[in-house]
């Protein structure tokens, strides 16, 4: 059905063989270009056997948390089947991308919207969802609306505008925004997959994850795993930003060393001080550790995580403590101010970091930052305090020498 428009469809499409999987159809791909590149996908015929393929593929969420995708869908599928009244699930494509250093979701929605739509429809069909939403910021509306208009099978997808805030993409905030127009996280006792939007089993899935689902539905799990590693199969989108010549989005094989990813963006490694991996809730990785791979397993020993695939580069001309202080200040301002420890703790952390960065000679500041980080962690309705604490602590450890210098009144980096 979906492929029977006036477009001549090439049936025997060769699956992508390189790491360029998500942008094969070219810039701002039309539905026709999309079908030429990827071939058709009869999404309405997809059943929950898709979950088996997803499990075999090893696909994990690309929005930040990195959960096994099939598990999330299985939970909603079970919740649906469990209910006496068979409450049908709701699927939401999450393209809010609140992380300021990430542009991958916008790049994907503006260039390969049909992959995202395919993945959304395939997911909805697999778990028999009755309502389907696509949630994204105004910037992506035109491209997405155009793509939705191109295909009759997408008419029931409801496009909802996401607020431009750090927190608007948090899963419970997404549900709250769609239900009540308030893009703030809510307190939850039950999981969203059990009781979310309108108390129905709800799946909130990052748009890049959906695009990968669209490809796995076409070409299968084995194809997906033909790139990347066993512990991090497939490809992922990475946004490289900061002190680099060419900021932008790259699609890389899972488990690619950070230094190789930086090389694709022409980063001169000899001038790198550190790279913030995973975004503003991420961790700093020092220049001498750039051989580490961008995967959950490889980064775990450093306390890190790929997050939404953000690499923010800091050059040797900059001060890591000051950069962190600025980010924590930003995160404090972005706190939804709903939860006490987050509302009071994050500004306090920003204050202490700023004092360390600006050379206050108080050796207690380090301990104070550790204590504040420990106090806020795990004490909010979302992971904003935890992520902020992780970032602050990683700065203290990766920039430990700098902190020593600062606390003795001397910054060795800033050319003030």
């Amino acid at each position, binding site marked *: 059905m979906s492929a029977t428009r006036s477009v001549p469809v090439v049936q025997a499409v060769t699956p992508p063989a390189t790491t360029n999987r998500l942008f094969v159809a070219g810039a701002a791909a039309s539905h026709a270009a999309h079908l030429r590149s990827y071939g058709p996908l009869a999404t309405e015929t997809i059943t929950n056997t898709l979950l088996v393929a997803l499990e075999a593929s090893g696909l994990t969420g690309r929005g930040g948390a990195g959960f096994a995708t099939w598990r999330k869908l299985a939970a909603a599928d079970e919740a649906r089947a469990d209910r006496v009244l068979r409450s049908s699930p709701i699927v939401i494509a999450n393209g809010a991308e609140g992380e300021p250093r990430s542009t991958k979701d916008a790049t994907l929605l503006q260039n390969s919207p049909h992959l995202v739509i395919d993945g959304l429809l395939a997911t909805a069909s697999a778990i028999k969802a009755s309502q389907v939403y696509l949630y994204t910021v105004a910037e992506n509306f035109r491209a997405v609306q155009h793509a939705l208009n191109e295909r009759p099978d997408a008419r029931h997808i409801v496009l909802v505008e996401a607020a431009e805030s750090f927190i608007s993409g948090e899963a419970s905030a997404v549900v709250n925004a769609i239900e009540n127009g308030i893009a703030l*996280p*809510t*307190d939850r*006792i*039950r*999981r969203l997959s*059990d009781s979310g939007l309108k108390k129905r089993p709800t799946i909130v899935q990052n748009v890049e994850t959906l695009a990968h689902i669209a490809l796995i539905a076409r070409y299968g799990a084995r194809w997906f795993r033909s790139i990347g590693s066993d512990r991090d199969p497939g490809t992922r989108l990475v946004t490289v930003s900061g002190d680099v010549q060419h900021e932008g989005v790259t699609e890389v094989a899972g488990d690619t060393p950070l230094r190789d990813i930086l090389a694709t963006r022409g980063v001169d490694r000899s001038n790198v001080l550190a790279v913030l991996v995973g975004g503003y809730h991420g961790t700093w990785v020092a220049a001498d550790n750039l051989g580490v791979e961008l995967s959950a397993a490889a980064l775990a020993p450093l306390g890190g995580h790929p997050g939404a695939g953000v690499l923010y580069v800091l050059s040797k001309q900059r001060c890591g403590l000051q950069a962190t202080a600025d980010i924590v200040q930003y995160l404090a301002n972005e706190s939804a101010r*709903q*939860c*006490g*420890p*987050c509302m*009071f*703790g994050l500004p306090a952390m920003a204050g202490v970091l700023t004092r360390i960065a600006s050379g206050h000679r108080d050796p207690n500041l380090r301990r104070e930052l550790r204590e504040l980080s420990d*106090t806020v*962690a*795990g*004490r*909010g*309705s979302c992971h904003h305090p935890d992520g902020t604490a992780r970032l602050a602590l990683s700065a203290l450890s990766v920039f430990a020498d700098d902190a020593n210098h600062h606390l003795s009144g001397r910054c060795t980096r800033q050319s003030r």
Partner: protein
Amino acid sequence: MAARTLGSTGTRPPAARLHIDWTRCDGRGLCTELLPRELTRDRWGYPLATKSASRSDVGIGESSLDAANDAVALCPKLALTLIPTGKTG
């Protein structure tokens, strides 16, 4: 590891979890007075779990169940919920 999730009874697992809705709690600390073994106050007054690994779903031992129920009933912000152990999500 398991020791951190224990309730106040020492060796037995917690009988329930006390869920704190941070979006409601105003930190005036009534619950911390009722549950002095499980909760203390942070520097701003908000309840801080003393032993529980989860700080938003605080492990409550058998002997503190009554006090926990009181806290749920008396919390002026309706920020507390007691969830029997075993029921998840």
